[in-house]
Every structure is written in structure tokens, then in C-alpha cells.
């Protein structure tokens, strides 16, 4: 003890050492509840950029679990941190809203493909760890908001991932069965996979070679290594919340359309159930409350009853408005060329479409007690549904048929003229404040179709320089009425075909900001931002033609943007969509007439020397354009030096 007391035990710089020991330090915004805000002023002024998170940018190698860059259908490592790191790039491009792929935890891998896209929900209450954690998600959204950019979340309500199989032969394991002998006199050979059997309106039946024996049991899988585990929330572990009718093979059949499993074994949710409706509102409202999203892009809208959308959209708006989130934009994907169908999800009457009627759409019942098939919400249900939809009909009839294939431009006018009849013409209560017909989301391509520049099999081959056609199509996209949506990589001239070829890794492009298309988009988004006519003005077609041959005006299409909420701003977009011929805005002496008075000066802000035109009598403008080019004319006094 004496020796010990004499000993000097020096505890050197323990305080300094302990400060060197790191404490876990999350940003304040990453923790606790956050305050929601309304970050948008007018959705018509937004330019949406679609981001497939897994392919956009890899900002954190720590979440690169099972990444395999050599296989398009596997995880590639992109994450929310990577997106946040590239916000400057996107801001430079001029986009103002980011639509990001789903954030929820997915089935990790199935049948050799990975859930990198996000559409295979397994746990709707957890983030997908491949993309980061809640802290990273919040950080990205917060950084976007600081740049006055908005973030739209992609959600799926129609189905979940491959979380169960139908035990058709009741042997307790998932099988690929073969029925039938296939020989003369025998029944045809049938291959039936218990993961993804074909649709049966009765529900999938169990069967063996001896015959059927009633509904096939549903067996939830349990393989944690691939995240084939029962879904969350717990409600979705009840087999009765699924329609259990098997895979849709005929999308024209209403029962299959709405009640069939999505191809790939994605199990269809019975969205007519009240508990499902409430759970979906709760789950997805919670994501907004956790991360302050500004809108939803809703997947597979046409596969879900209109009744569901009435309940979902209205109750979600009310819940978010109570917390300070207003003008929440919900737009849907109805992958269909039928205007009346895709527009029906934005209308206000009930039934909104024959499908709605056939499926029992009825406000009296919907507002009635649950035991009578109703589902009362926070307020009486009205006919309001979504604030917008992807303008798929325009994609097929204008982008593909006209701007790529050079078909008659009158198609576009006919399509637009039907808008008033097919789309909602009044704003939804507690919604964006804008009629859905004014907030259709326009696009040239997306993750489900070949890229615009794709020139391989399965599409008509370009008869003109593809990049020239793209430039013209982008001009159309960024000047027409509605909200433009640009698929990631368009600005880098990616040209992949169908899925998964159109989901390239953007980092391989080096994020160049110097290439022609990036500069073109940047220029157009800038012009769009400076000229309110292009966002808030009404749209009037002043020239469209059936001519596609040698006629003077073959391929010409022109529309004015003016009036409405544009406050005197004016723009005139003129296109020559002919693939080979120079055309003019006249035919047999009839010259295109604008709404401006004689003597007005219009300047084509897309020409290097700002070509000016003086309008003739009745505002006539005789403009000649080379094939696959366009002009954007602004009144001289409104031209900005930055244009």
C-alpha cells in the first residue's frame, strides 16, 4: 500500500481522449417528428425528373449489399445519399421536382431478379436499407427543399411483392406443376407455377391429377436471406386481404385488370376492403409525416377500383392538411392508351367510368356503414380522386406516333380537344387548387417503356437523326400544357430499350453537363421558368394538319400559350414533325393566324440570332422550319436576355 501510494499513476489526458472518442451524431432533422411544410406554389410551374434511385448515384458504399454491376437486373448500389450529392447537377439542369422510386423495404431478390426498382413491397413501414436509412432519406429531402426542389414519392397500393405462393397441390412446398399429357386424346400440357398461376375468376383452386378441391391455401414464404418474409403491416399477413385469383393475362377483362396478380408473382391486394383502405392511408401518410414528401406518384392506378382512390386521396389530403401539408400532389400511372380510362381517375362524378360502375362505385354505399360495404372516412366521401395522371394517351399518339414516326399532327389536336371531356375540370377539395386537366404529367419515356432514343427491335426505326427528334420532342414536352416529366438519363442521351435495358447506371455518363441534350434541356427549363405563359397560360392549337407528305404544311403543329394565369405572358410553339421535308405554317394560301395583333413582333428565342418576325394582317405568321425542328416565339418585349 505504501508503495502504491508512492506510485504515481498518471492518467494522461483522459478528458482529451474521451472527446476523441466519437459520439453518434445524427443531424437534428434526422431524429424525432418533423414539421411538415408546403413547399410548392403552383404545380404547373414544376419540371419533374424521374429518378430510379438504384441507378442514379451511389453515395454510400456502406449499403452496397449484394451489388452486382454486371447484371442489369441486380442491385447496382445507387442510394439517397448519391442523389443528395448530385442535387447541384439537377439544379443546373433546371428540374424542380424529383420523383423518386419507392422507398419501402422490398423482397430482395426473386427468380434471379432483384427488387432494385422498389415495386416489390414486403414491408411498407420500413425503409429499403439498400438506399440508406431514414436519416439519409430525410437529409436528401431536406437538401432538395433548401434548393426549392420538391420530392415526390412513388407508392404502390395495388400489390405487394412475391410474399406468398398458392399451394395448389397442397404438398407444402412451392412447385412448378405440369398437368395434362399433351398427346392425342389427352388433355393439353399445362405448366402451372404455384408462385404465379394464371388468373381464375373463382380464385386459385387447389388441384391434383384427380381434380380440384377448393381454394388453394396461401402459404407465406419465410426466407429472411432474400426477404421473402410475411409482409408488413400485420394486416397484410391475412390472406383475406388479397384477391388470390392469380396472374392477369388479359388486361381487357375487368376482373383480371382489377383483381389479378401483377405479372411476376406480385400479389394483388383487395383494395375494396375498408381495413385495407385505412391501412394504406395510414402507411403512406406516415411516410409523408416522416420525411415531408410533397406528392405521390401512384403505381398501377387502373388496377385499383375508383372507389379506393376516392377514399385514399380524400382522407390522405385531410390528414396531411391538419399537419400543414397542403397542395399535396397525387398523380397516377394508368398505363393505357384510352383517354377515357386514364382520365376517369381525375374526374369528380360517380361513377367516373363504366369500370367504376361495374365494380359498384356508389357514394351512398361508400359513405355507409362498413357492414353494408361502406367505409366512412374523416369526412363524407365525394367524387374527388387524383390530381393528375400520366398522359399516356399523349405518349402513344403524340410522342410516339407524331414526334417519332411523323404521323399527322391533327392527332394531337384531337387528343387535346378531348381533354375537357375526359379529365377532371375542377380542383379537388383540399388538393392542389388546380384542375386535374391542367396538371397532366407529360413524358417522352419512363422506366416501363423504351427510351425515346432507343432504335432497336420492337420499335419503328428512326428515319431521322434520333437526337434531332429528341430535341424536338423535348421542346414539345417543355412548352405544352401540363407538367413535364423527364426520365433520368434523357439529358445524357441514354438509349436503352425495354426493362431492364432502360435502367442504366447514370454514373457511367460522368454526369456531363456539356453535352448537347443537357444544355438543351437546361435552356428550355430556363425559358419555361422565365415565361409564365409556358406554365400558367391556356393552350390553343392554331395549326394542326393531316398532311404528312409533300404538302406545304406537312408535319406542322403549332399552339399558343397565353391567358389563363399567365398575366399577359405569351408564347407560341411551332413544330415541324415531318422527318424529311421543310414545311411552313401555311397551306394553299391560308397562313397560320395567331391571337396577336398585326405588326406584333415575335422572336424565335431558339435561333442563335434571335430571328424576329412581324405578324401580318390578322396576326398571320408564315414560318418555315426544317424537318424535325421547332421554334419558340416570344413577343419581342417579353424576351429576356437570358433566353
Amino acid at each position, binding site marked *: 500500500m505504501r508503495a502504491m501510494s508512492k506510485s504515481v499513476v498518471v*492518467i494522461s489526458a483522459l478528458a482529451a481522449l474521451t472527446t476523441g472518442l466519437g459520439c453518434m451524431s445524427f443531424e437534428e432533422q*434526422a431524429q424525432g417528428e418533423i414539421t411538415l411544410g408546403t413547399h410548392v406554389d403552383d404545380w404547373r410551374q414544376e419540371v419533374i425528373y424521374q429518378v430510379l434511385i438504384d441507378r442514379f448515384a451511389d453515395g454510400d*458504399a456502406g449499403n452496397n449489399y449484394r451489388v452486382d454491376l454486371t447484371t442489369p437486373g441486380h442491385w447496382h448500389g445507387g442510394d439517397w445519399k448519391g442523389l443528395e450529392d448530385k442535387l447541384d447537377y439537377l439544379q443546373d439542369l433546371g428540374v424542380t421536382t424529383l420523383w423518386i422510386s419507392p422507398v419501402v423495404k422490398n423482397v430482395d431478390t426473386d427468380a434471379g431478379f432483384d427488387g432494385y426498382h422498389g415495386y416489390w413491397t414486403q414491408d411498407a413501414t420500413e425503409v429499403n436499407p439498400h438506399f440508406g436509412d431514414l436519416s439519409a432519406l430525410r437529409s436528401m429531402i431536406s437538401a432538395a427543399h433548401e434548393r426549392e426542389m420538391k420530392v415526390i414519392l412513388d407508392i404502390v397500393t395495388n400489390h405487394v411483392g412475391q410474399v406468398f405462393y398458392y399451394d395448389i397441390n397442397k404438398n407444402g412446398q412451392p412447385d412448378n406443376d405440369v398437368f395434362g399429357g399433351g398427346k392425342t386424346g389427352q388433355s393439353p400440357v399445362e405448366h402451372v407455377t404455384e408462385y404465379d398461376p394464371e388468373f381464375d375468376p373463382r380464385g386459385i383452386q387447389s388441384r391434383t391429377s384427380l381434380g380440384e378441391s377448393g381454394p388453394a391455401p396461401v402459404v407465406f414464404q419465410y426466407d429472411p436471406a432474400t426477404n421473402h418474409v410475411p409482409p408488413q403491416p400485420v394486416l397484410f399477413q391475412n390472406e383475406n386481404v388479397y384477391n388470390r385469383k392469380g396472374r392477369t393475362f388479359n388486361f381487357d377483362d375487368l376482373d383480371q385488370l382489377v383483381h389479378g396478380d401483377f405479372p411476376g408473382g406480385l400479389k394483388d391486394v383487395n383494395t375494396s376492403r375498408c381495413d385495407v383502405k385505412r391501412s394504406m392511408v395510414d402507411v403512406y401518410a406516415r411516410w409523408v409525416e416522416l420525411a415531408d414528401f410533397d406528392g405521390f406518384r401512384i403505381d398501377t392506378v387502373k388496377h385499383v377500383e375508383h372507389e379506393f382512390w376516392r377514399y385514399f386521396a380524400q382522407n390522405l389530403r385531410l390528414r396531411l392538411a391538419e399537419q400543414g401539408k397542403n397542395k399535396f400532389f397525387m398523380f397516377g400511372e394508368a398505363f393505357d392508351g384510352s383517354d377515357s380510362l386514364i382520365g376517369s381517375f381525375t374526374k369528380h362524378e360517380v361513377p367516373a367510368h363504366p369500370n367504376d360502375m361495374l365494380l359498384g362505385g356508389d357514394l351512398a354505399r361508400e359513405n355507409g356503414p362498413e357492414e353494408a360495404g361502406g367505409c366512412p372516412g374523416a369526412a363524407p366521401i365525394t367524387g374527388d380522386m387524383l390530381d393528375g395522371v400520366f398522359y399516356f394517351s399523349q405518349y402513344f399518339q403524340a410522342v410516339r406516333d407524331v414526334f417519332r414516326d411523323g404521323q399527322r399532327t391533327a392527332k394531337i389536336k384531337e387528343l387535346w380537344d378531348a381533354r375537357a371531356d375526359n379529365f377532371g375540370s375542377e380542383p379537388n377539395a383540399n388538393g392542389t387548387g388546380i384542375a386535374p386537366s391542367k396538371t397532366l404529367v407529360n413524358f417522352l419515356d419512363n422506366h416501363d417503356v423504351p427510351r425515346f432514343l432507343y432504335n432497336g427491335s420492337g420499335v419503328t426505326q428512326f428515319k431521322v437523326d434520333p437526337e434531332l427528334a429528341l430535341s424536338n420532342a423535348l421542346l414539345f414536352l417543355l412548352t405544352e400544357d401540363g407538367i413535364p416529366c423527364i426520365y433520368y438519363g434523357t439529358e445524357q442521351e441514354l438509349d436503352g430499350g425495354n426493362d431492364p435495358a432502360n435502367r442504366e447506371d447514370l454514373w457511367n455518363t460522368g454526369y456531363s453537363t456539356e453535352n448537347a441534350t443537357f444544355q438543351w434541356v437546361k435552356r428550355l427549363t430556363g425559358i419555361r421558368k422565365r415565361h409564365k405563359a409556358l406554365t400558367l397560360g391556356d393552350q390553343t392549337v392554331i395549326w394542326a394538319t393531316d398532311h404528312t407528305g409533300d404538302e406545304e404544311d406537312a408535319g406542322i403543329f403549332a399552339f399558343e400559350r397565353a391567358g389563363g394565369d399567365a398575366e399577359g405572358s405569351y408564347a407560341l410553339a411551332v413544330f415541324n414533325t415531318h422527318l424529311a421535308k421543310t414545311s411552313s405554317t401555311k397551306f394553299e394560301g391560308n397562313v397560320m393566324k395567331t391571337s396577336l395583333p398585326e405588326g406584333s413582333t415575335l422572336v424565335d428565342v431558339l435561333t442563335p440570332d434571335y430571328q424576329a418576325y412581324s405578324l401580318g394582317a390578322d396576326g398571320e405568321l408564315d414560318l418555315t422550319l426544317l424537318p424535325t425542328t421547332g421554334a419558340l416565339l416570344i413577343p419581342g418585349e417579353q424576351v429576356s436576355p437570358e433566353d
Partner: protein
Amino acid sequence: MRSRAASAGLVLALVASFTASLAPSLARAQAPNPTDPVPAPSATSATSPSTTAASPPADPPPAVTARPPDKPPAPAESPGNDEPPNVEAPVKPAAPEPGILEQITSGFSFGSYGRMIAGSDFRGRPGRDADIVARGSRLDESNYVELELRRDDYWQKTDSRTRVVATLALTNPVFHYSGDFDVTLAIRNLFIEERDLGIKRLSVWVGSRMYRGDDIYLLDFWPLDNLNTLGGGLRYELTESGRTWAALHAGVNRPPGLFYYQQSQRPAPNNAFGATTVDILNRQQTIGSLKLSHLIPLSGNAGLKGAVYGEVRALSSGQRETDPGVFEDVPAENGFVVGAQIGAFTGQRDTHLNLFFRYARGLAAYGEFARPTRLSLERTTDGAQEVLVAAGGNWETGPFGLMAGAYLRSFRNASAALDNDDIDEGIVALRPHLFFGEWGGLSVEGSFQAQQRGVLFAEEPAEGETKAAPTGPLTGTMWRFGVVPFLSPAGRGDYSRPHFRLIYLVSLRDKGARAFYPKDDVFGLREVEHFFGFGAEWWFNTSWNYGG
């Protein structure tokens, strides 16, 4: 004959006393922990056949790989190593005859560290390590034994000595538990060391060696230096007294895993039939270390000790095959460690106190046998770091003894964002003893441990409720209290072994600690954990550190 027998007996006695008198914290016995020493709680039991390590765990990285001490840190009159050599007792009056160790000729000797336990959780399950930190209480450690065989030779021609050490370590499964002829074993030492060949006070070793300094017995932890490599080294005593020495070492290892090794199939060459395997990636980690130590004698047998330590690690670049014929570059890696230790001892009854500091960077931060994960964007370990401060000590007086151990550790992996594998943790543990004469006694142990991980934590909601937003990083704490009556045939002393003992240990977990465990793991469901076991621990005549 009589003189030889007497000499041999005296040699053995002196060797025994010499080893007992060595510098502080000479503990040694190893916990079987050859792979990643995970901070995450273990899923294996102390006596279950599946236990392979004292702190087995599941996942990720780092941590210092510590081995349980074998020999207690008996205060040394002079720092020595485990060789025969000189080491005159600094303060004891020396006999006029030459040092006895100089009279050692040749011979075999056997030593062992071991612990055996039969444990239960009072709920019908086997006992299981419940610590939430990487180096926690060792009362619920699993079975482990080292069997050491040594051959010492004195070479008259060169006036030098050699020692060959072979240590076989075994751990669960134990035949008498599982009935299977199956065991996990490892060669923990297989090296030869010489001393005084050519240069006096210089020793050189080559082989596979547990190469380490002082430990904290209570935590089964070597905080500063604890290497396991295939290599060699040399140690030189700069002074005749041996109080100042320097040790240099270099070695290699190559843990399993794609970070180090990949084998692929190729067609047999020369148009032969079949396939063969080719090492596409095969890179071994090179580790070098340097330690300088100095001891200042004080009055009596007391002294102060200081050491500085440094380590460098390197791993070459290479290629890994991602698809047949498609290769990705694997960057080179490196890392380093710097550290220091100061200690004091009384020279009486193993009373001592050691303080350690260690900083590791890059590859070295992940730990010796780790398979690094959560790499940087450049796919390297660059940016990973670990900071450690630790203390260990013992104090004995009369019938009372007190062991203590504590550390604080912060680990960050190479990925920039915080994640589940980023850890801050620490423990304080105390084990007072009360000796009943020379034959046994009662000890109690209390510890408080805490761990924080780089993930945000939100409690799971009740059914039907919405999950709340996370409130901060996941932090778990645990109190542990144990009572250990023991028998000690070797007499009184905190480091006196063997011990026969009963152990009762209760652990109190908070909700954060329970959240460390996966769904359905009972440790994630229980706030209170019991451990009851009876077992033994022994050590005798084993090799230990290199004299630190």
C-alpha cells in the same frame, strides 16, 4: 543424481516463481475468438456445442480480438519474458552463485490454461454470453482449454537458449455435452525462440505465435497489442537489467473471405479433362509492430512501467472475378496503430494498475482477422478508425482483493454514413474478492456496459399503433451482478489458480439492449437474464506475452 534432481527441482520452483513474479498483467489464456470479435451479443451458449468463442457473435466488424488471460499479472521484480534467461531479481538479495536459469540445460515442460463450465439460464436453456459489448464480463464465457508443450534447450557451444512452444487450443463442442466426436481446435502457438545467440540479451523468434502484451483479466482483453500472425520477431533488452527493451515483429495472416481470397474454377490445362481451381485473388495481410518498454523500479518491488506501441499493416491490390472472365480491381489497403501504456505495480500480491490508449486507422481499425465491410466509395478501408482507452488493475490487501477493468471504444467503419456497424461502447467492471484463509473465498462482480450503434431507433409500436419517428441512435445499457464463491487450492490471491467455483450472474437489460437482438431471440424479449453455472478455471506454466 541428487544434485541434478535438486537442481531440476529448484529450476522448476524458480521458473514457477519467476513466472509468477513477472510484470503486471501477464494473463494469457486465450478465448477462442479467431474470427471477427463482434460487439453484437452472442447467440451461442456457454456450454452448447455450437459455442466456438467466448464472445461469438454474429456480425460485423471490428473490435480488438482479445483473448482471455491465462496468467494473472503478478507484479514483477523485473520485466521478463517467458524465456529461461537471466532476469536477476532486481531487489532481492541474490545468491552468489550464478543465476539459476543459466543452469537450465534441456527439458520438456507442459502448461495449460483452461476453463470449463456447466451453465444454465434457470429457464431450461444453456447459459449464454449476455454481454452487449465486445469485451464484457467473463463469468459466462464458454469452455476453452490450451494445452502447451514446450521444449527448452541450452546450447553450450553458443551459450544460447532455445525454446519451442506448441499450444493447442480447444473449445466447444465438448464430447460429454453433445456426444459427438467433434471439437473446434486451433494451433495458437507453434514457434521457436532463441536467446543470446551471438548477441546477448537479444532473442529472436519465428513461427506462429500469440504475440501480445498486457491484458485486462477481468475483461479477457488485450487492449494495446494482441497479434496473431505467422512471422517472426526480435526482442532486445537495451539494459543489462532488462528493464528497457524493444521488440520488433513482422508477420502475415490471411483471413477467409472475398476481401482476401477468391478461388475460381478453370478448365484443366493442356486439354486435360475436368476442371481445376485457380486463386484469382490471394492477398495476405502483412503486419509489423514495434514496442518499446521501460520499467522504473521504485522502492521494494514496486515499479512504474511505460510502453509505446506502433503497428503498420499492408495489403496488396489485386483482382476479383465478378463474372466468369470479368474482373474488378481490388485496391491496396493499409493501416496503422499507435498506442501507449503506463502502469504501476507494488510488487506485492499482484497489485497493479495499467492504463492503455490505442488508435487504429484504416485496415488496422477493423481488427486483425476481420473481413472488412461497409467500405468507402473507393471500396477501401480508408477512413475507418478506432479509438480505445482502457484501464485494468488489481489490488490486494489481507483477505481482500479487488480486480477492475474498464474501457471506452469508438469504431467507425470506412463508409461515410453512420450505420449499424459503427459502434461506441464501454464497460466498467469490478470484482472484489474476500478470501477465507488460503483455501477459498467469495467474489462478487458488478459491471455496467453500454453500446451505441449508428442507426436511429424507434420503438416498435403496439399492435394497431403507428410507429413513432426515431428519437436518436440505438443505445443499449446493461447492468450485471454476479456472485462467485470459489475454492482455491493454490491459496489466496486474485490471480491464484486453479479455482473451483459457483457462478450466479444476473443481467438487467434496458430496451435499447434488447433491441440489439433479432426477432424471437430470447435476449431481445427478456429484461432480466439469469446465469447459473459451476465450473473451474486454471492456468499453470503457460507461455504468455513477449515480456510486456
